[in-house]
Each structure stands twice: as C-alpha cells, then as structure tokens.
C-alpha cells in the first residue's frame, strides 16, 4: 500500500505538439476536485482524447505538468496508471471474455480484493441491467452492451481519476440513464471523473463543471449554468427545413446560425421573438420549412457559438 492520498487533479499549461507543428493541446490548464464530474467537450479532433492520453501516460506532454495530489503523473506513468482508470473511445479487448469475467479480472488487475471485486462486479451487472449477458462472451455482444461492459471494467475498482471517453456511444437511452447514475456514484466515492464527449445535451445533465475545448485550446470553463448565463438574453429558433431546400435568406435579427442536414439552428435576441415567429411561419407558408421551435438557449447553443460546431449526437435528448 502506498501513502494516503487526497488531492485535486491539476493540469498546468499542458501542450502537446505532434510532428513539430500540430498543436493538439495548447497550454491547457484545469483542475478537478475529488468527487467532481468534469466534462471535456469539443468537436472531433479538438484535442480531448490527446489530453486524457497524457493523463494516463500513453502520451507525453511537450510542455506542462499533470499532477494528482503529490504525484507527478508525467514523471511517473506507472503511478498514473494506478491512480487513473481509463475507458478509451475505441472498443475494449473483450471478444473472448464473458461479461462477468472481464469485469472481475480487471478489478483484480487494478488491485481489488477478490471478494469485494466479486460483489462489486455483480452490483454493476445488476445496476446496468446486464444480467442477461453475464456469461456471454464479448464477441456476441452488441456495441452498446460492450460499451457498458467497458464502463464496468473501468469502474469496478475505480482510480482516483476515472476517464470516460465517449462512454455512451451506441448505448440505448434507458441504459444511458443507468450509466449516468453509476457515473454519479463514482463521484460520490471520491473519484474525479473526466467525461470526454461531443454530446453536449448529455453532458449538460451529467457534469458538475465542464471545459469546452476547440483547436487544442480550452476556450470556456464553468458550470453548465454559468456558461449559459451569458446567453440568457437570447433565444434559440430552430427550423426543420424541407429536404433539399436551400438555407433561406436570414433576417437581420438572426445573430448566429448553423445548419446540420435539414436542421437550421439560429440564435436571436429575446425582443425579436415575435418577428422570429412570423418569419418562421412565413418559411413554412412558402414551403421552405416543415416546422419550427422557439425556446430558451441551451448549453448546445453556447457550444455552437464558441466552437462553430453542432454536437453531432443528440442522444436521448
């Protein structure tokens, strides 16, 4: 047993340059307290996975420090692996393992005591509603169930830092909810949880604080409400365009817009609400749009404003 550890996770000025020029992370500084669920949001390629790979010791920062309490995770990658558990974005190597066995063995490898690991394994299987697949090998599981088994492997004997890279990919809405409960529990036990995602709607509900990362830089940080505060005087007007319709000419009161597929999302000022409704109905009237929705801005709108991207998967909404 090593020394007793309480302490926050700190990344200070973490910079990662690939091939001498590509700055995947640019002077990222953040801290996460034990018990906190911390979201790392950003478009694909923003540098989120690069950051967490440096935490776990798979990559070495070009500059900067990463510490947990008294431990320097960059200098001591073996300690980093002991202190952090990591669910990568890629699939887990469990094709030949039965569900229960994969979770149990990982708990043992992480240093958990046999009986306690067994108990915790059974609880996770129960809590995530995986009982039907308890003795089924990974090769026969669907992508979403595999993802839940992977989450269980990472959290059966959690590290002080638990890194979850897109944990809900392919997971059905019902079990997503169960998974978020378990993520919460990790926080209650004192793990600092890093939730890496590009799914803003989900993150909004699951995290205590979050950072938005774009082009390798941390461009905003705070609680979901504090980040939304700046956008409180705005509204979101969403138009479902008729398939194949071109984006209509936007009236001057539209402050910002993004189009993904047939979905046109715009930001408008509160005082322009009535003009906006009239304009939206006009678009339906002339056959450009099929329906519209007007509502308060969400974290997604903040995200769009800051990154210029739409979060690509709205999940359970």
């Amino acid at each position, binding site marked *: *047993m090593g020394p*007793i*550890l309480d302490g926050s996770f700190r990344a200070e000025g973490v910079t990662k340059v690939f091939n001498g020029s590509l700055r995947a992370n640019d002077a990222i500084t953040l801290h996460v307290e034990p018990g906190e669920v911390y979201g790392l949001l950003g478009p694909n390629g923003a540098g989120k996975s690069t950051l967490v790979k440096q935490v776990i010791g798979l990559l070495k920062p070009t500059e900067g420090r990463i510490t947990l309490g008294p431990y320097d995770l960059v200098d001591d990658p073996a300690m980093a692996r002991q202190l952090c558990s*990591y669910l990568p974005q*890629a699939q887990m190597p469990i094709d*030949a*393992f039965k569900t229960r066995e994969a979770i149990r*063995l990982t708990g043992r490898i*992480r240093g958990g005591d046999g009986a306690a690991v067994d108990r915790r394994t059974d*609880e996770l299987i129960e809590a995530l509603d995986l009982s039907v697949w308890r003795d089924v090998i990974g090769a026969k599981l669907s992508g979403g169930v595999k993802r839940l088994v992977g989450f269980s492997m990472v959290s059966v004997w959690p590290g002080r830092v638990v890194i979850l890279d897109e944990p809900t990919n392919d997971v059905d809405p019902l079990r997503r909810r169960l998974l978020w409960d378990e993520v919460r529990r990790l926080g209650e036990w004192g793990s600092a949880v890093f939730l890496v995602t590009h799914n803003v709607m989900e993150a909004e509900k699951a995290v205590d604080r979050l950072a938005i990362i774009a082009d390798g830089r941390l461009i905003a940080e705070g609680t979901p409400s504090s980040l939304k505060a700046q956008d409180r005087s705005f509204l979101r007007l969403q138009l479902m365009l008729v398939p194949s319709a071109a984006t209509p000419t936007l009236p001057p009161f539209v402050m910002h817009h993004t189009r993904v597929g047939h979905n046109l999302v715009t930001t408008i000022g509160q005082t322009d609400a009535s003009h906006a409704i009239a304009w939206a109905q006009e678009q339906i009237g002339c056959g450009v749009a099929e329906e519209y929705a007007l509502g308060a801005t969400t974290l997604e709108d903040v995200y769009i404003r800051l990154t210029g991207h739409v979060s690509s998967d709205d999940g359970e909404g």
Partner: protein
Amino acid sequence: MASAIRLEGTAVPRPTWRHAYLTMTGWDLAGLRLELPLIVVVQILSGIGFVLGIGLFFQRIPAQVALYVSTGVVVLNLILVGLIVGPQNTADQKLAGTYEYLRALPVPATAAAGAWFTVALIASLPAAVVSLVIAELRYGISFTITPSIVPAVLLTAFTGTMLGYALSHAIDDPMRTRLIAQMLVFFVFGFSPILYPASQQPPWLATISWWLPFEHMATIVRAGLTTGVVSGIGRSYLIVAIWGIVGTALSARAVGRRA
C-alpha cells in the same frame, strides 16, 4: 446491499509484481480461450508433420538425420507461439484499437511480459512432448534426457517469446509487425540450422546463423535430450541468453515508450 467504496483518505493500492503477473496470466489465458486449444492442436500436428514428413525424404532415414529432426522440431514447437502468435495478437489489438486500453492497465511491463511467456510456454509444451514421443515410436530413438533440458526449454521458449514480444511492441505499424514475423518464421524454418547441422550450410550462411540464436537453441535443447551429439554448449547458452536479454530490453523500452 451496495458496496460503498471510499477513496478519499485511503491509501493508494499498489499491487505487488506477483499479483500483477498472476492476474495478467489469468487475463491472457481467458483472452485466448477460443484460440488456445486450436494453437495447441496446430502445434502438435505441425510437430508430427515434421517428424514423420522428413522421414519420407529417405527410403531409410539415417539415424543422425532422425535425431537432428526430432530434437530440432522441439525447438520449433517452443518458439513458434512466441514468434508468430504473439506479434499476430498484438497486431490484431492495434488494428482493433484495444491496444491502448491494455497499455493503460496498472501492470508493470515485466509482469505483462512474464504472463505472456507463461501462456506461450503452456501453449508450446504439449506439442514438444508429443513430437518427442512420435519420434521415439517411429524411429526407435532413445533420448537420454538430462536435467539440463529444463533450463534449455525455458531459455529457448523465453528468448523466442521475447523476440516476438519486441517485434510486437517496438514496431508501431501492425502490418509491418505481421510481415516481419512471417518472414522471420520463413527464415527460421528454411534457413536456420535447427533441423540439420550448421555444417551443411554454405559458409557465409553458417556465419550468419552462428550469430543468431536459433542454431544455439537447437544445440542446448539437443544437449538436454542426447549425449555426445553437440558441443560448445556453454557458448550456445550464452548466445541464446544474450538474445533473450536483447529481446526483453527492446520490449521493455517499447512498452514504456510514450509518443
């Protein structure tokens, strides 16, 4: 009743090397459960194939040839899992994207390597034994097995496994790993004096073979199974051991490397 794991104010668990080695051996065995029986069967069949097949080259196989082939096949049985299956598995893990997860487990590189060596040995030994039994039955060879067979078998399997392990981890591109492993096996089968004495090679190839571990693996294994057939046994142990250390060092460096 839910577990209440409390992390704050508790010590950081530091599993021992032994714990890491044992749990990783369990992991590797479970992970190979679909392939392991097949590997063992293929190894046994290939061992039998060599022992019996080479006999068909001759109307009446000379005693010396039978002895060289039968003892050489044991070496092939001992190194092929480490040299082929290891790199193949790692290449598969890299292509499937699961390699990073395995690298992020809190397991010392030497414990992970030791676990894989154990599994490779388990997969190799049955075939080695069967090959010897078949040779004894078919050619009436009576082997004089000495205790030195134990270090010879362990060192041969270890060096083969570690060279494969180095190939798996020191080369980033999985396709290249596969290609090199396959070429190496081709070289070992065809151009290494394992099944025949080095004196039958052209001098330039014999010189190359002398610096490589394979001829010496055959020498030390043969020394444990026969008397008066081979010489220079101490030197051969040294050369195989040096290659084992080189393989281990390259692997350790590669596994600990951070881009």
